[in-house]
């Protein structure tokens, strides 16, 4: 770091790192490892003062569905990242056990459980939306979702909302 002495009110000329201004994040998967990255990115965007929208589609909607949001589990079958034999991953209770271990680790890192995290992100002012096509397909309505959901919107409305920002699909 250089040793430059600055004139008065020097903080005005400081280099604030440039970031994007707006992000719209799609969460499409209903597994533990499918839901968290999108939530962490949405919360992280708000922490940086970046405008954020989260669009939950397909099984990603489990994260905002009252009856399902605290029952989301790590996929232990067909998940090569776990480096676990498929037959072992299919054992009864295996998914629950791995999920429990992961939740414990996350709690230590102060990463909230999904229901709390969804509420927290809504409280940051991020827009939280359910996908209309998926809502119709799964025969759901607004009452099935947690109250922090802003609206049920179409894909077209999502793109309108995403205008002028970046889209991240997870």
């Amino acid at each position: 770091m250089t040793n430059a002495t600055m004139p008065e009110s020097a903080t005005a000329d400081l280099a604030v790192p440039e970031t994007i201004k707006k992000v719209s994040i799609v969460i499409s998967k209903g597994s533990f490892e499918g839901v968290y990255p999108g939530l962490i990115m949405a919360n992280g965007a708000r922490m940086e003062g970046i405008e954020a929208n989260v669009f939950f589609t397909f099984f990603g909607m489990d994260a905002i569905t009252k009856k399902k949001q605290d029952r989301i589990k790590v996929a232990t079958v067909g998940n090569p990242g776990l480096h676990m034999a498929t037959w072992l991953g299919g054992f009864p209770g295996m998914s629950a056990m791995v999920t429990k271990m992961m939740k414990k680790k996350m709690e230590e890192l102060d990463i909230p459980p999904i229901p709390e995290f969804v509420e927290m992100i809504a409280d940051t002012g991020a827009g939280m939306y359910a996908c209309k096509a998926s809502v119709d397909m799964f025969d759901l309505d607004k009452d099935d979702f947690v109250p922090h959901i802003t609206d049920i919107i179409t894909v077209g409305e999502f793109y309108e909302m995403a205008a002028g920002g970046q889209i991240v699909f997870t």
Partner: protein
Amino acid sequence: MTATIAGQTIEVDAEGFMQKPEQWNREVGAEIARDSGIGEITDRHWQVVEYMRDQYLETGNAPSIRSLGKESGVPIKELYKLFPKGPAKLSAKIGGIPKPRGCI
């Protein structure tokens, strides 16, 4: 690098985060707040800034936004009203502690 804030020479990083928390006082904090677009700092802002600073001095780490919302006495919604450009980052800056590097 150094900057002159509230008439004092202060060690800062390239973004203006103070590198030596012991150089901080409320006048310095109030000036950083004005320069960061907060305007005149209120008691509610101070409550967050002081919690942030105390936690850092006590533990060596800035608290997460989750604990800031749960334990500072100012809930998440209000945190974002007070510090629209990022509550954790800005309250750390105003509180004279280094930039927090947590993801949560």
